[in-house]
């Protein structure tokens, strides 16, 4: 019984630690053509679900990481779907002509480079990533 309780506490502590790590670990970045400095979590979700393609006066398009811990954490926290469910959702759009598959890149550096050169691009990277040519957006 004591072992089980200890395991529960360890699990909860682990989850809390992971969440805390994640919350501080991700940055939302955008091409400088996006003038907004902040975004609501609902708008961020809508942009990644492709039901919203504007932010302020700018046309925006989401950029994803290929499957990985950061992608999984971002999708679960901000989009409300895990990576697998989000990919299924995108496929339902792609194969019915409703939308195209968002760009997905391997590394933070590639995402920064792509967002910097692509008008309206909005993505996310880990907080330690060196940023150049992009703006950061805070989530309200």
């Amino acid at each position, binding site marked *: 019984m004591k072992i089980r309780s200890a395991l529960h506490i360890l699990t909860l502590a682990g989850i809390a630690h992971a969440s805390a790590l994640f919350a501080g670990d991700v940055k939302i970045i955008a091409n400088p053509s996006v003038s907004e400095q902040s975004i609501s979590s609902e708008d961020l979700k809508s942009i990644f679900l492709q*039901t919203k*393609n504007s932010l302020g006066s700018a046309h925006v398009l989401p950029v994803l990481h290929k499957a990985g811990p950061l992608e999984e954490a971002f999708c679960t926290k901000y989009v409300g779907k895990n990576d697998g469910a989000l990919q299924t959702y995108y*496929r339902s759009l792609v*194969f*019915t*002509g409703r939308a195209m*598959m968002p760009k997905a890149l391997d590394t933070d550096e590639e995402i920064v480079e792509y967002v910097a050169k692509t008008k309206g691009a909005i993505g996310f990277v880990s907080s330690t990533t060196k940023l150049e040519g992009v703006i950061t957006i805070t989530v309200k």
Partner: protein
Amino acid sequence: MNFLKHSGTAGALLLTAATAFLSQSLHAQGAAKIDGKEIQIHSFASQGFVYSDNNNFLTMNTSGGTFAFTDAGINAQTQVTGKLRVGGQLYLRNVGELGNWHPEGDWFLADYRVKDWLGFRGGKVKSALGLWNDTQDLTFLYNWALLPQSVYPLDLRANTISHLGGDIYGTVPLKKAGSVAYTIYGGQRPSDLQGGIVYGLLGSGITVNSYGGTVIGEDAKWTTPVKNLMVGASFVDLDVTTEGTRISNNKPYDVYTNKDHTEAAYAEYSIWKLTFDGEGRREIQDVYKVGLKSGGNGTAAADLRGGFLSATARVNKWLQVGTYHSRYYPNWPVTPRGLPINHLFDQTFSARVDIKSYLDFKAEGHFMNGTTGPNSYHGFYALDNPAGEQPTTKLVILKLSYHL
């Protein structure tokens, strides 16, 4: 075509392999670029094996076991400007006597999105109706090898699958009340000469030259403030005109619609690793005029009702399991509804194994009660069951699908 028909398994495997190879190659190279524009190419294919204990189902020789359960599609899209996107998809299927490997332009469209709440699509467009009408061919999205036939009958796919016309669509935020995604559409439905109605009429001694008409529809999906709860409703007004010839006396056969309205209500809810879906449909076919060209003045009417409830559970990364219960009544006022010719119930159990992110395998068991009779053209056909239909059918489907 006959060669492929008779060597269905080989043809299906060849098609699947060819499409997979083509798509893999294109995928490996990344999306193509023309004039600096990225062109995305995606494809899918599935191959099934179906076996039943009693009746032959969906025009397949299921009682003998059959591989004639194949479909495939390939699409290309590009974003021309920030607001304008164009693309198209080819699709073909061979399901028993349905489709017959006949390739069709599944959708091809130009999409101009003015605002988040206002966009326009024109061309041949998939029709928004209920939970899964526009995605019903894409079984790799679902736990099911065969969607609930009460609402998504494979043999009547063309009745509602798409329209040559246009959509007005958008998503309207409702602040704390969530958001509503709407679609309003209209156009001409494709004339499907490879579908269940035409096949069923052939069994009644009628060859069909054209089967189609117009469609006007609306669909609204409300993403509620309750986390992971979506509810929706749809309405479709069909015009169905069928023209053909009676084989016995070479006289014309024609049917015209006064009113054909379908209403749908549906919901989806996810919690933990569980997903629940449900949809109810009612189609009122109010007075079909029959035989005007041959001097006849017959009429027909029906009140079709159906629906399903489903539940799926993600067990782990590789395995998902689920069950649904589906009920269909070809004409609700006709009693007793307990007679096999007046209903079709289906209790289904399904397991999906995700072998790779682009490859899945499904094993599914169907326990069906009722057939709706030989003349309802809904799953069971007189041509396939010449000795008569048994009241119950057990059916197994194994299906391999890929998508890239």
